[in-house]
């Protein structure tokens, strides 16, 4: 798939997404609410523990929550369900007729749709963060968190496509998005820093791909300047792309559509 096609698909999805003004507003309000709640919870937790929790100060935990929510709120968490619907209904058949790989176009469009929302969340966080928690603990950390957020969103969307390809074999796997979402919640570090987990679970989470989807940008935004985390994201992205390509390709070969 050519770079030009990827960029065209991303730009088309981004334009379509930003033209829905009320959708953009809902997304911004949703982000403010969820980020405020989570940061309030963790600040209260830090306050109850002498101003620090699992190595995160109250300011650091605020920026952790803001980044974690930006990484997840900016994408449609029901992407799995939507892909499953398209596969189960046979709607994906028309995409197979196009002279472009279905998976590549779908991922490009999903990432393109997510990026404007991500930019909006980052802009909101830049205002909200200093108000509720204080200035970011590290400028370098915030700078590293920007590409990490883009990679986090991309890893998440690619993984969702890999998981959703199960619909080629089992017709009704829509409910699986509930489970996927909750795995990202906990093992991805979305609602709690991985350092809060029991030691064994933390070690397990650190070697799973879900940590690239929320923990990595959040860890960086919370002032921990660890650039090697970006390399880890890139490595996992490559693995996830291979897995999604293999699963989708196998599924496409066995797709049977009755009627039209």
């Amino acid at each position: 798939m050519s770079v030009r096609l990827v960029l065209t698909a991303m730009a088309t999805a981004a334009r379509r997404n930003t033209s829905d003004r009320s959708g953009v507003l809902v997304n911004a309000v949703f982000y403010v609410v969820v980020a405020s709640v989570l940061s309030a919870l963790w600040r209260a937790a830090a306050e109850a523990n002498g101003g620090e929790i699992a190595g995160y100060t109250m300011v650091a935990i605020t920026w952790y929550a803001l980044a974690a929510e930006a990484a997840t709120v900016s994408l449609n968490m029901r992407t799995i369900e939507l892909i499953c619907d398209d596969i189960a209904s046979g709607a994906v058949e028309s995409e197979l007729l196009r002279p472009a790989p279905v998976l590549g176009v779908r991922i490009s469009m999903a990432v393109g749709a997510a990026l404007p929302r991500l930019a909006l969340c980052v802009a909101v966080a830049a205002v909200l963060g200093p108000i509720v928690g204080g200035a970011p603990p590290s400028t370098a950390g915030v700078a590293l968190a920007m590409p990490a957020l883009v990679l986090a969103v991309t890893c998440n969307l690619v993984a969702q496509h890999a998981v959703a390809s199960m619909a080629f074999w089992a017709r009704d796997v829509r409910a699986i998005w509930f489970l996927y979402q909750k795995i990202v919640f906990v093992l991805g570090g979305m609602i709690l820093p991985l350092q809060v987990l029991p030691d064994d679970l933390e070690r397990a989470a650190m070697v799973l791909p879900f940590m690239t989807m929320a923990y990595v940008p959040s860890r960086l935004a919370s002032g921990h300047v660890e650039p090697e985390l970006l390399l880890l994201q890139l490595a996992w992205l490559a693995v996830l792309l291979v897995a999604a390509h293999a699963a989708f390709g196998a599924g496409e070969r066995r797709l049977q559509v009755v009627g039209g």
Partner: protein
Amino acid sequence: MSPVLATMRTAFAEAWSNRAAFWTQVTAIVLNDVVWIVFWILFFRRVGPMRGWDRNSVLVLLAVLATGCGFTFGILANARRIGWFAADGDLDAALALPVSPLAHLLVRRVDSVHLGDIGFGVVLFLAVGDPTPARLAVFLFGVAVSIAVMTGFLVLTGSMAFFTGRTTMADMGFNAMMILSSYPVDIFVGASKVLLYSVVPAAFIAAVPARLIGDPGLGDAVALVVAAVVFSGAGWAAFTLGLRRYTSGAAWTRA
């Protein structure tokens, strides 16, 4: 049998018709809820009691929330679709019937995925809520208030689509309500806390009922009754007023 009960029975039969999908969805939502138990256990294991809340009291909050949400989103599933119906002009079928349109709409659809929440909530309360007859009665009272407030608020925000033609308010109301009601209300301070007792009445969905179960008091009980009456009344009034501005979309199938 009243028309509303007959409609509800039909909605249940429809949801139950695909057994495999029904059980898959119920299982998925229960697993989803279990993750919240895991989260709160991990949280309080690390943090300890916080602003008057500990692990058990938050799990009781979760039990009230799950049961209330299960009933509202499972049995009164159309409560969160009022805005879409209004914006799309999709209410014609309900308006032609000799029953209250709102009552018919609310019971017309059962969303089986949320029925798992009801079972999960009740079992969780029985497991961690130290269930005596008195506490069980307060739990049921709290769940009833939770359903009334949640349904009223969703109908109220959804009915704004009659006036604005858009579902933005309904979407924001739903999202805000769900998130804010899932956490102990005392983590918020100042204006945010006032908001949770007024504009977005999330405190009355789970936190105040859970507090009442743990520490029964007349003040909280009266506040819950007032919240239930105010928000269910406001939802009904907004829907009734909104119907006067309703424009048909010539669609007969979804309501």
